[in-house]
C-alpha cells in the first residue's frame, strides 16, 4: 500500500517538488519563528528528495517525464532536473544555516523571512520545471519579488536600498521578458521551450531579438555583469541569512534557468547563432567586470557576489558554445559556483563578518567557517583538484574544441584575478591577528550552519573524484540537446 503511494508521488515528482515546498512556505508564514524554520526546512528537504530522485531517474535512466495539467504545464529535461537538484540542495543548506541567524530578523518578521527564503528557491525550481515561457516568467518573477522582499526584511535600513534596486531592475527585466516572449510567439508560433528549438521560424530577426531580450532579463536576475547593479547594495547590508539565501540559492537558480532557456534557444537554427554571440559577449564582459570588481571589493559579501558574476560569465561562455560539451561544462561550473557561494556567504554569515578586516584571524576564532571560506577561495583561484578548476578546465576543453581560444583566455584571466582576491581572503583568514570582536553566534543554534559549511567543503573537494558529477552533467546536456534536436 505504502509502496503504491510512493510510486504515485514519484510519478508526480515535478509537481510535488514545487507544490509541497510552496505549501510549507505558506504554513511557515503563519507559524512562530522557530517553528516556521522547522517547517521551511522540512518542506525544502522533501522538495530536495523529489528533485534528487527525479534527477537520478532521468539522468541515469534517460527517461522523459511530462506532466500536463490544465493551465499549468510542467516538463522536465536534463538541465531542469540537474538544476532542480542543485538549487534544492543549495536551498536546503542555506535554510538550515539560516536557523543560526534567525534572531537577526525582527521577531514579527522572522516567520515571513523564513517563508520567503523557501519561496525563493521553490519558485526557481518551478521555473526550471516549466514547459513554456509563460511558466518561466511567472516563476522567475515570483522568485525575484520574494528575494527582494526577503532582503527588505533585514534589520538594517541599507537593505531597503538594495531591495529598491532589485525592484526597479526587476521591473525592467520583466518588461523585456514579456516583449521577448511575444516576439518569439509571433515568429515561431509557440512559447513551448522544446517546440521553439524545432519550430519553423518565419521572422528570424524578430525571434532572435526576442530570445536576446529574454536572455538579458534572466541574466539581470542572475547577477551577470554589467547588469548586476543590484548585487552590491543588495548583499552588503542584508542580514546574513538573507544574503546567504539570495546569494546562493537565488543566483544559482536564476543562472540555471538561464542555462536551460539558452540551451533551447541555441538549438534553434534560425536564432541559435545570434543567441550564441549575445551569450558570448555577455559572458566575456561578466568575467572581466566581475573579476575586476572582486579585486577591488572591501566587503566580503560584495566580493563573493562579484566573484559569482565572474563565474556566471564562465557559465554563459560555456552555453554559448551550443554543444553538449559546452552545456555539460556549464553545469559543472554552476555546481562550482553554488559551492563557492555557499562557502563564502555561509562562512561570512556564520562568522558574523562583513568587511575584509573582519576576516582577520577568523580561521582561529571560527575554524569551520574559516575552512569553508578557504575552500571557497581556493576554488575561486581555480586551484587543481577543486571544483572551480574542474569547471574552468571543462570550459577550456569545450572552448578549444570549438576554436574559441579567447574563451580560454577569459578563463585564465578569471583565475589570475581569483588568485589575487582569493589569496587575500586566505591571508586574512589565517595570517592576521583579529582586529574585531567575534560576532558569530554563541548559542546551540550556531551549529545549524555546520551542514552548510561541511557541504561547501565537500562540494569544493568534488574535483578530486568528479566522476558522478561529470556523468550527470554529460547526461543532462545530451538529454536537453537531444530532446531539442
Amino acid at each position, binding site marked *: 500500500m505504502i509502496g503504491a503511494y510512493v510510486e504515485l508521488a514519484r510519478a508526480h515528482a515535478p509537481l510535488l517538488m514545487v507544490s509541497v515546498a510552496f505549501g510549507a512556505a505558506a504554513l511557515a508564514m503563519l507559524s512562530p519563528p522557530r517553528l516556521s524554520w522547522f517547517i521551511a526546512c522540512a518542506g525544502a528537504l522533501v522538495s530536495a528528495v523529489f528533485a534528487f530522485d527525479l534527477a537520478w531517474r532521468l539522468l541515469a535512466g534517460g527517461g522523459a517525464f511530462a506532466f500536463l495539467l490544465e493551465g499549468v504545464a510542467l516538463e522536465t529535461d536534463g538541465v531542469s532536473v540537474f538544476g532542480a537538484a542543485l538549487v534544492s540542495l543549495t536551498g536546503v543548506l542555506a535554510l538550515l544555516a539560516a536557523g543560526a541567524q534567525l534572531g537577526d530578523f525582527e521577531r514579527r518578521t522572522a516567520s515571513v523571512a523564513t517563508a520567503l527564503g523557501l519561496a525563493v528557491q521553490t519558485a526557481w525550481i518551478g521555473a526550471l520545471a516549466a514547459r513554456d515561457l509563460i511558466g518561466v516568467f511567472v516563476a522567475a518573477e515570483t522568485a525575484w519579488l520574494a528575494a527582494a522582499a526577503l532582503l527588505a526584511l533585514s534589520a538594517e535600513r541599507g537593505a531597503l536600498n538594495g531591495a529598491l534596486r532589485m525592484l526597479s531592475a526587476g*521591473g525592467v527585466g520583466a518588461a523585456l521578458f514579456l516583449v521577448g516572449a511575444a516576439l518569439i510567439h509571433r515568429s515561431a508560433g509557440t512559447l513551448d521551450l522544446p517546440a521553439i528549438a524545432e519550430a519553423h521560424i518565419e521572422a528570424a530577426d524578430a525571434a532572435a531579438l526576442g530570445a536576446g531580450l529574454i536572455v538579458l532579463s534572466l541574466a539581470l536576475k542572475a547577477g551577470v555583469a554589467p547588469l548586476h547593479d543590484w548585487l552590491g547594495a543588495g548583499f552588503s547590508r542584508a542580514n546574513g541569512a538573507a544574503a546567504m539565501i539570495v546569494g546562493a540559492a537565488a543566483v544559482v537558480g536564476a543562472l540555471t534557468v538561464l542555462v536551460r532557456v539558452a540551451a533551447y534557444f541555441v538549438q534553434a537554427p534560425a536564432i541559435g547563432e545570434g543567441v550564441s554571440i549575445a551569450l558570448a559577449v555577455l559572458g566575456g564582459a561578466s568575467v572581466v567586470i566581475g573579476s575586476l570588481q572582486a579585486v577591488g571589493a572591501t566587503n566580503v559579501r560584495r566580493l563573493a557576489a562579484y566573484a559569482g558574476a565572474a563565474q556566471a560569465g564562465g557559465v554563459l561562455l560555456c552555453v554559448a558554445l551550443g554543444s553538449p560539451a559546452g552545456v555539460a561544462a556549464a553545469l559543472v561550473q554552476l555546481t562550482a559556483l553554488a559551492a563557492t557561494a555557499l562557502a563564502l556567504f555561509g562562512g561570512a554569515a556564520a562568522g558574523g563578518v562583513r568587511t575584509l578586516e573582519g576576516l582577520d584571524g577568523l580561521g582561529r576564532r571560527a575554524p569551520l567557517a574559516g575552512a569553508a571560506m578557504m575552500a571557497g577561495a581556493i576554488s575561486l583561484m581555480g586551484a587543481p583538484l577543486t571544483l572551480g578548476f574542474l569547471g574552468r578546465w571543462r570550459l577550456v576543453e569545450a572552448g578549444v574544441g570549438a576554436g574559441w581560444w579567447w574563451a580560454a583566455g577569459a578563463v585564465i584571466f578569471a583565475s589570475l584575478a581569483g588568485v589575487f582576491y582569493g589569496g587575500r581572503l586566505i591571508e586574512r583568514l589565517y595570517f592576521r591577528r583579529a582586529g574585531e570582536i567575534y560576532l558569530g553566534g554563541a548559542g546551540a543554534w550556531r551549529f545549524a550552519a555546520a551542514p552548510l559549511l561541511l557541504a561547501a567543503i565537500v562540494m569544493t573537494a568534488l574535483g578530486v573524484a568528479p566522476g558522478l558529477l561529470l556523468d550527470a552533467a554529460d547526461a543532462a546536456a545530451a538529454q536537453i540537446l537531444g530532446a531539442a534536436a
Partner: protein
Amino acid sequence: MAADVLILRIAFGLSLALLIGGAAAAWVSDNALKRIAGGVVAALGALSALAALGAPAALSIAGAAVLFAHVAFGAALAVRLQESYGAVEAPELDRADSADETAEPTP
C-alpha cells in the same frame, strides 16, 4: 501595406517607446518613487506591445499580475524607505549607506 498592419506597427512602436522611457527612468532616476514608477511604465509598455504583437492572453494576464505585484511591493517599499531614511532620493540613500564604507570600483 494594409491599414490595420500599419496601425499595429505604430502601436508597437509607441509601446516600445513607453518601455524604453520607463526603463530609462527606472535605471537612472534619482528618486525612488520615480524608479518604481519607471518600472511600472516599462511594464505597461510591454503589456501594450503584447497586445500589438497578438501575444496569447495567458501571457498578458501573467504580465498584468506581475505588474500588480510590483506596484504593491513598490508602494510598501517606498513607505519603508521614507520611514527609515526620511527620504526617497536615491543619492541620499546611497550617501547614508556608504558613509562608513570604503568606495569600490564600478564598471
